[in-house]
C-alpha cells in the first residue's frame, strides 16, 4: 500500500530531476517540509549528487552561522532550488502565508511569510508544494502576497515556480504566460475532480496523465534509508507515514 506522502515525495523527486529545469546542485529544505526533505533524501540515497541543506537539523547542516547563512548563500545565487508552500496559492503562482480578511489576517491568520519574500526571487527554481488541494487554498487571487510569482522586468529575480504539487495533482508553471498547466493527476483523481477542487483557472491537455507511483526501488529507499535519515529531524512525520517500519 503506497502512502500518499510517498507518492508526493516521488513526484517531487521527478520534478527535481527534470532536465529542462535549471540544475539543482544545492537544495535547501525548511523545518516544515518533510515531504520535500524525503524527496531530496530519496535522490541522494539513489546516487544523485545533490547537496542538501536541512535548515533545522540540529547538527551537521552546512551552516556554521545559523540560518542567516542560508539566506546569504541564497542571496548569492548558490541555492539552486527551494520549496515554498502557502496558506493560499493563486493562478499566477503568488503565495500568501500571511492570512485572509484584513491585514494582517483578521479572518484567518497563517504562520507568517518566513523567508518566502526573499527566497522566491533569489532562487533560480522553486517548487510550490501544498498537500491540501481545495478552492480554499488554490484561489483565483491571494488575499495578500507574501511572495509574488511574477515580477516586472526591471526587478532582480533569478527564477520563479517550476511547478506546483498538491495532494491531488501536479501543475507546471509557465512564467512567460503567468499560468499553470495541469501535468498529471494522482491515482483516484480525474481531470474533472481536480478542476472542481481548484479555485484558479489553468490549462489542461485533452488527455491528462496519471501521476506515476514510486517503483519498488524508490519505495524501498523511502522506507529504509530515507526514513532512517529523517527520523531525527521529522519524528512526527516518520511515525505517521511509516508507523511499522
Amino acid at each position: 500500500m503506497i502512502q500518499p506522502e510517498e507518492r508526493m515525495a516521488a513526484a517531487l523527486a521527478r520534478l527535481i530531476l527534470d532536465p529542462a529545469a535549471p540544475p539543482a546542485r544545492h537544495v535547501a529544505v525548511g523545518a516544515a517540509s518533510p515531504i520535500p526533505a524525503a524527496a531530496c533524501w530519496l535522490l541522494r540515497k539513489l546516487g544523485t549528487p545533490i547537496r542538501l541543506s536541512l535548515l533545522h537539523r540540529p547538527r551537521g547542516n552546512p551552516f556554521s552561522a545559523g540560518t542567516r547563512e542560508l539566506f546569504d548563500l541564497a542571496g548569492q545565487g548558490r541555492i539552486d532550488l527551494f520549496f515554498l508552500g502557502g496558506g493560499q496559492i493563486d493562478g499566477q503562482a503568488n503565495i500568501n502565508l500571511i492570512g485572509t480578511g484584513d491585514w494582517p489576517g483578521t479572518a484567518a491568520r497563517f504562520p507568517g511569510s518566513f523567508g518566502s519574500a526573499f527566497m522566491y526571487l533569489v532562487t533560480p527554481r522553486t517548487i510550490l508544494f501544498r498537500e491540501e488541494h481545495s478552492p480554499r487554498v488554490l484561489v483565483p487571487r491571494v488575499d495578500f502576497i507574501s511572495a509574488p510569482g511574477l515580477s516586472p522586468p526591471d526587478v532582480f529575480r533569478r527564477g520563479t515556480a517550476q511547478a506546483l504539487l498538491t495532494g491531488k495533482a501536479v501543475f507546471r508553471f509557465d512564467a512567460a504566460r503567468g499560468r499553470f498547466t495541469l501535468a498529471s493527476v494522482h491515482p483516484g483523481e480525474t481531470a474533472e475532480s481536480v478542476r472542481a477542487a481548484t479555485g484558479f483557472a489553468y490549462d489542461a491537455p485533452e488527455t491528462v496523465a496519471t501521476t506515476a507511483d514510486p517503483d519498488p526501488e524508490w519505495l524501498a529507499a523511502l522506507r529504509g534509508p530515507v526514513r532512517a535519515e529523517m527520523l531525527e529531524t521529522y519524528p512526527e512525520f516518520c511515525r505517521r507515514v511509516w508507523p511499522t517500519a
Partner: protein
Amino acid sequence: MPLVSVEELADLVPDGALVALPPDNSLVPNALVRALIRAGRRALRLLGVPVSGYATDLLIGAGCVAALESSGVTLGEAGVAPRFLAALKRGTLAMTDATCPAIHTMLQAAEKGVPFMPLRGILGSDLLAHRPDWKVINNPFAPGADPIVLLPALAPDVAIFHAMMADDDGNVHVGRRHELATVAHAARRSLVTVERMSPRNLLEDEHLAAGTIAAVYVEAIAIAERGAWPLALLDEYAVDSAHLAEYARLARSDAGFGAYLDRHVFEAARRSFA
C-alpha cells in the same frame, strides 16, 4: 560581570522594552521568560530573530506583550501558536510582519553601526506596503533601472537568550548559533542565562572562542539549569515534545492557558523557592 538570579535578571528588562528572542530551535531563555511573567512585565515589544514560537506565545498569553515583529509564529510540529492567534483576533497585539532575511539584515545594520542595509527580493510582496520603515531606491551601482529595498538598522533594547556556559569575565558560549552573536552585537544590552559557569576563560580557548559572545555585549548573567526547557539546548538536551503538545492543547482556551501558567510558571517557581 554581575552574576545575578533569574528573578534579578528579569528585573533588568523594563516594561515597554523592545526584546529580541531567538527561535525555538536555538537557545530560548525559557527560565527567564517565566520570570518575566511572574514579575508582571507589561507592554513588551518582542522581536523574533527571525521567527517566534513557544516563548513568544507564552508571553503573549500572560499579557506581557503589546507588539510583535516576526517572520513567522508557530509551535512547529505542535501546531499553531494559540495565544498569538487569540491576541491577534482580540486586537490586543500589534503585529508587524517581516521576512527572515530582512530581520537578519536589520540587525546586521545595527551590529555594523550603519543606518541601513540593502536586501534583494521583497519587491512585489505586500509586506513592503505595510512596512513604511522599509524604503525602495534604485541601486546606485546599476547602469539602469534596478529597484532594491533598503532596510533600517534595528537595535533591540535587550537581547535575551540562554547559553551553554559563561566565564567569570562575562563571556558566554553559544556554539554554532552565530545568529545569536549578531543580535547580541546589535542589541543595546544582552541578558543571558546559562546552564553553568566555565572554570576557564572562553576567549582564551581557540576552539571555544569561535562560538563565544564577548562580555562587552553582556550586561548580566544568571545561572538557570535546564533554562531552555521545554525547548532543546543544542547537544545538551532535547526538546520536550510531549510538554509542547500539552501546551498547544491547553493554550487553545483561556482557561486551559491559565491552568498551564499556574502549574508551570507560578507553582513551579513556588515549589523551587520552598
